[in-house]
């Protein structure tokens, strides 16, 4: 099919078409440079001396290279504890929330029960509800529970499941034939075992993609942590680098701020580069479905 297409189009490709392609390529490449140049400048700034980046002259390459800012960032107690706090949120949420989401997706896709449609639609509608609308009541509720200024408000609610993950996995499961389900039933295989031993292995890839996206979302989350965490020792990474920005920009220590931001961005960017094909696919599918 693909070959066929290629042959067809290469047959049509005219000289005019070819020049057009070159122009398009140059424009897109220029645009791409504009897109990533701020990141390049960010990394470069983190290696510059204060004199250089405050010189007001366009010199993008550090001269001389200063390597110390990264160890300086790591030596700030806040920074390491910020990373640890974020990890402390990530692990239980991804494990428990990933489990509850997959299980619910399985039930929505492959099982029959009354109220299924209504429950699913109800859950789906919550995607529309902005966090800003419910953050005050949540704050009041978590204060009452004694959870504020602990990581619990960031951990417990998502453990109940992530609706977009449920939605995506359900979509993914519809491509698996129902025969498997019927066969399992005939063999007297329990529902949980059917999920754990037959369907979960089949949806592992999709679960992995969703967990990767979820990891990034938790890593980058800022609004909820700023509301629920008061004392510095409990801050997650994003809250810490925001405070770095407030504190060190007064001293014009932009190299330090940029170094902190670079480290904070590395995990998500690394994950993206490793799994970009599946990540982009799952984003693209959401628009077509």
């Amino acid at each position: 099919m693909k070959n066929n297409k290629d042959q067809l189009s290469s047959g049509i490709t005219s000289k005019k078409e070819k020049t057009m392609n070159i122009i398009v390529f140059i424009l897109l490449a220029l645009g791409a440079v504009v897109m990533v140049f701020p990141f390049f400048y960010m990394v470069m700034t983190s290696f510059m001396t204060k004199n250089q980046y405050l010189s007001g002259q366009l010199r993008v390459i550090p001269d001389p290279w200063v390597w110390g800012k990264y160890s300086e960032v790591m030596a700030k107690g806040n920074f390491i504890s910020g990373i640890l706090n974020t990890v402390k949120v990530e692990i239980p949420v991804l494990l428990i929330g990933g489990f509850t989401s997959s299980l619910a997706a399985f039930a929505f896709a492959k099982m029959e029960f009354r109220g299924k449609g209504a429950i699913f639609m109800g859950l789906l509608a919550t995607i529309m509800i902005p966090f800003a609308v419910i953050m005050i009541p949540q704050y009041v509720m978590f204060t009452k529970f004694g959870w504020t200024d602990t990581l619990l408000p960031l951990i417990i609610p998502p453990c109940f499941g992530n609706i977009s993950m449920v939605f995506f996995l359900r979509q993914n499961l519809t491509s698996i034939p129902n025969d498997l389900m019927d066969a399992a039933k005939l063999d007297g295989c329990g529902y949980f075992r059917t999920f754990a031993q037959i369907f979960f292995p089949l949806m592992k890839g999709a679960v992995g993609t969703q967990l990767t996206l979820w990891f990034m979302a938790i890593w980058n989350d800022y609004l909820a942590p700023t509301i629920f965490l008061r004392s510095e020792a409990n801050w997650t990474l994003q809250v810490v680098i925001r405070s770095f920005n407030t504190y060190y920009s007064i001293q014009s220590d932009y190299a330090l701020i940029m170094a902190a931001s670079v480290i904070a961005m590395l995990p998500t960017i690394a994950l993206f580069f490793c799994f970009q094909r599946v990540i982009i696919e799952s984003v693209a599918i959401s628009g077509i479905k």
Partner: protein
Amino acid sequence: MDSRKGKKQKINLSAMAKREERWGLLFVAAPALGFLIFMLYPIIFAILTSLTTWNGAKGFQGMMDRFCGFDNYVKLFADKKFWQTLVTTIIYLLGIPIGMILGLLCAMGMNRKIPGVRVLRTMYYVPVISSLVSVSILWAWVYNYDYGLLNTIIKTLTGLHGPNWLGDEALIKVSMIIFMVWKGLGTSIILYLAGLQNIPRSYYEAAMVDGASGWQKFKSITLPLLSPVTFYILVTTLIGGFQVFVEVQVMTPSGNGGIGYSAATIVFYLYQKAFESYQLGYASTIAVILAIIIFIITLINFVGQNKWVKTMD
């Protein structure tokens, strides 16, 4: 004999169906409970709170003691700051069509036979997956009046001092829009590119046989067949556009919403009312209005969907 067997099977089936029902409900119990506790209850609570002048003290009784009916709504209607932040939020939405047009153009370019499409796509997508706090910090540095990258480039090229990107009431809005378009462009490119690749080539070939021009093909094949994608991008970015907060707090000096509150959005105002001045009642009123706005947008979109979204069949 036969009928008895049939009856027995029926009983078995319904017992099995009951069992399936129990397990099914159990499996979806966690998200359903999460929805009730962390979504539905808070929404009802927010509506209730919006009818009070509660400041968080003395628990539920304290809240009901401060019941004030619809006073907050009347007050909000006359609140200049509320209108200002609402208008700013809407101005920021101008970035949506800009991003969509740019995204479509880039996607159409990438849909041609050019080298390195995957690398290009990745480069445009990096801002999307980057932490919003980090890139807001980065752009605050790029926009810096005296030493930022942008003004350094302007000075090198023209010899003049560039404008104060984040220090001017009108310009800060432009700066924020540029930033938001940069941050979100990758998503619309990927969605449009997937949409374009979904359009059967035969449509264009048929149009070519009919002697259609490039513009005609674009207008009567590409655009209509991309309308589901356009619709999806519009709905998601509109909902997201009403929730802009982080970039305002991080990019305005000392997180004050900019000079004369010029960069502040409706969620930023809500945040300040709730967590800086502890006017939980009033802030909840803003939250309820925000929910209503988003609900109306979604409703209009879904009603309009049938009208202007065309599908392949």
